[in-house]
């Protein structure tokens, strides 16, 4: 399956891009994806972020649907 991964704010700054696609050989949960992201981008270990899957905040047990849009969201600052 192909995942679109979006990075925002200080997370985009940390990983040096705002968008990429990942080919995943087999299904995984949000928690498993988060672990892979931390492995690829160690800078994320020191930064707070939440994972959204298809525009909804996801807990770690959530199975990621095929073709999902994943977003790494740093702390919100609206207002």
């Amino acid at each position, binding site marked *: 399956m192909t995942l679109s991964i979006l990075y*925002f*704010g*200080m997370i985009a700054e940390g990983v040096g891009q705002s968008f990429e696609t990942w080919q995943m050989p087999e299904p995984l949960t949000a928690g498993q994806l988060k672990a892979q992201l931390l492995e690829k981008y160690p800078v994320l270990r020191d930064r707070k972020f939440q994972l*959204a899957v298809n*525009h909804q905040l996801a807990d770690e047990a959530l199975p990621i649907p095929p073709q999902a849009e994943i977003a790494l*969201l740093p702390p*919100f*600052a*609206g*207002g």
Partner: protein
Amino acid sequence: MSSKTPKKVFVEGPISPAFISDSIAKHQSKTNIGAHAIFLGQIRADQKEEGVVTGIDYSAYPEMAEGVFHQIREAAFEKFELSCMHIYHSLGLVPVGEISLFVFVSSPHRRPTFEALEYIVEEIKAKVPIFGKELLGDSGAFAWKENS
């Protein structure tokens, strides 16, 4: 006014006093309204280690933010006796002293406007994926804002 109508929330740059006054004027024909309450978020010149905040550069995850704004609107109409509600938030650079958030609620009576306004502003701060880069001094330094 239907609460189902999708609303455009984001505006580029600061929200001008003229825009706010136009918005107030548009309600003169809605004669069932007896009370309005307005919240304006203004950029504050906080002193940070690297310098004084001169502005905030806002960005967002618009596709998700629009959905969250919609949920907040629906919940507010559900909880409070409101005639109408308008929410505007800036994207891009908003200099210090200018307005980045404009929330405008109207009701036949005052009490629901006070309660709804606080509810809506707190929900926006906690739940909408908006990000803010605080620009510091004139050296190009910046810090990422985080709502508490």
